[in-house]
């Protein structure tokens, strides 16, 4: 669905690249997470893929279209949910969606259905200017689905949303993905990436440092240890056991059988920890 080869981009048209030699491929039906701190090059890459930025160097193919000579028809296949809400504040929620559906050629979705999907039912006739930040964000998210996109670009889709709504948004993303929609997810939130993505790319200073599935990364970079707290002779004892070494596995088994276990935690690495380990950088 997306193929990027040797992508470079410089805002100053010199060797000071915001994106350097990016190469990746996203097959149809995948949720691909593009992770990195602010200023890493995520938005620049996404801007080029969506035609918002001019392709300077490299080959980029999106939804079967060469981005070098971008065709407006490409946008019939693409949906884009921006990090910053961008809806017409003087139009109502329904008017916003009604307007955008006229800007696409194919079959579009019913505005009322989309508003219901994102929890804005009952607010159809309220002007977007009167919406809270979270409601505007949901309207922006709903609009990105208006044209039934095959490829869905999501930029920080849960930012600024309360946990319940964020959970609903994640469910919608999963559901759309199950229906065959390919998702390009740009975020610095490792938890949503971990929950949703089939594969993630770590980008720092314009360079992609790594691409793999969250599961593989955890296996590769996580420590396979278990922290156990148990009561021994009236006092609480804390010990760490390897889940690989045979001797420690037997000791752990014995502790479980002989003593009262207070708590037990695996020391699986989080994506954030792996990111820091790989890139040497935090995510903020």
């Amino acid at each position, binding site marked *: 669905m997306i193929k990027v080869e040797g992508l470079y981009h410089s805002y100053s048209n010199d060797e000071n690249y915001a994106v350097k030699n990016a190469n990746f491929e996203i097959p149809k039906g995948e949720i691909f997470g593009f992770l990195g701190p602010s200023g890493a090059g995520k938005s620049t890459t996404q801007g080029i893929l969506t035609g918002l930025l001019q392709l300077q160097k490299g080959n980029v193919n999106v939804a079967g279209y060469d981005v070098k000579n971008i065709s407006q028809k490409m946008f*019939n296949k693409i949906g884009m949910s921006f990090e910053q809400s*961008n*809806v017409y504040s003087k139009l109502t929620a329904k008017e916003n969606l009604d307007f955008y559906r006229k800007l696409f050629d194919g079959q579009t979705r019913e505005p009322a259905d989309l508003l219901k999907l994102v929890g804005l039912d009952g607010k159809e006739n309220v002007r977007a200017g009167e919406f809270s930040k979270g409601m505007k964000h949901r309207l922006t998210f709903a609009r990105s689905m208006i044209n039934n996109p095959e490829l869905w670009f999501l930029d920080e889709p849960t930012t600024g949303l309360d946990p319940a709504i964020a959970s609903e948004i994640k469910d919608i993303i999963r559901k759309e993905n199950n229906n065959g929609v390919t998702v390009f997810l740009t975020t610095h939130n490792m938890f949503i990436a971990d929950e949703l993505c089939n594969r993630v790319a770590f980008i720092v200073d314009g360079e992609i440092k790594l691409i793999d599935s969250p599961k593989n990364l955890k296996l590769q970079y996580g420590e396979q240890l278990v922290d156990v707290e148990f009561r021994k002779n009236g006092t609480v004892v804390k010990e760490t056991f390897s889940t690989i070494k045979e001797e420690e596995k037997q000791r752990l088994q014995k502790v479980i059988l002989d003593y009262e276990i207070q708590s037990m935690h695996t020391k699986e690495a989080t994506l954030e920890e792996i990111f820091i380990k790989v890139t040497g950088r935090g995510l903020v």
Partner: protein
Amino acid sequence: MLKKIWAIFLRDLKVGSRDSLTLIIIIMPILLGIGVNLLTPSINDTTVNLALLEGENPAQAEYFADFAKVELFPNEEAIETRVKKRDHIVGILPDGDRYYIMSQGNEPESVIEMAKLVNMYYAEGINLEDATAKLFEFGETVPPLKKMLTNTLIIMISILGGMLITFNIIEEKTDHTISAMNVTTVSKNAYLLGKSLVGMLYPVFSTIVILLITGFRDVNLGQLILMVIVSSFLSLLIGFIQGINNDDVMSAAASVKMLFLPVGAAIAAIELLNQKWQILFYWIPFYWTYKGNDAVLLNSATWPQILLYSGIVLALGLIVYLYLSPKIRKGLA
């Protein structure tokens, strides 16, 4: 593509109807048109009006009726009341065996002179048949002040059309919706056309309303609309660039208002300056617009003349377009 252009136009129209500043811009020319009517006499009100005492001298009243519109009143107070009204009417009243002129004071000199002259002719017993003069016309078939104000108003309307575009672009910038538009199937050209429709149709519609209000109903509408459309082209470009360069409507409106400077200069040049100085103002598109509109309002314009003026305005507009187009496209990216 046409469907999308139309959708953009309708959206702008809907948003405009919910914006107080836009509504003011839409209503203002209508109010100004009514103002022009109040300030200047009616387009047909070009004859001299005389107020006389009823039955005082019927022969004189009959004689005056050949030269002017005569109104008769029962007494001097009634004539005084009538003369004090807004339009230009002078009284001719008896004073012993002579007559005196009663005027409000703001009548054009020509009206007073005409009243004096007619009175003198009657006293001397001069008839129309005695005249040996040939008739010359100066082409002033409509009141010049009214024509000038209406023409200025029409040009102002085209600039206000540009201002509507400015407000629309600023609204898009404030709502950050330009990026959302850029990921739809609407091309840049279609977007620009859609946005331009408001700035193009508003001057056409408002000009027709102004003509109806001010009484210029018999002018060649085709010629005038052509002049309005070509002069709106320039206003559209300025409207776009000011929308891109400004982040709030007040500063944008102030910038667009700068356009009134060349408009004022062009009008002053045509109305006040000697022909030999006119060349200094040929570079101002509104100079040619004013000339074209003036000829149309006078009902003296020919199509070749209007095509020439509109061609010059369009050519000057194209130069501005070539300069501004890359900036507009970049600004909307």
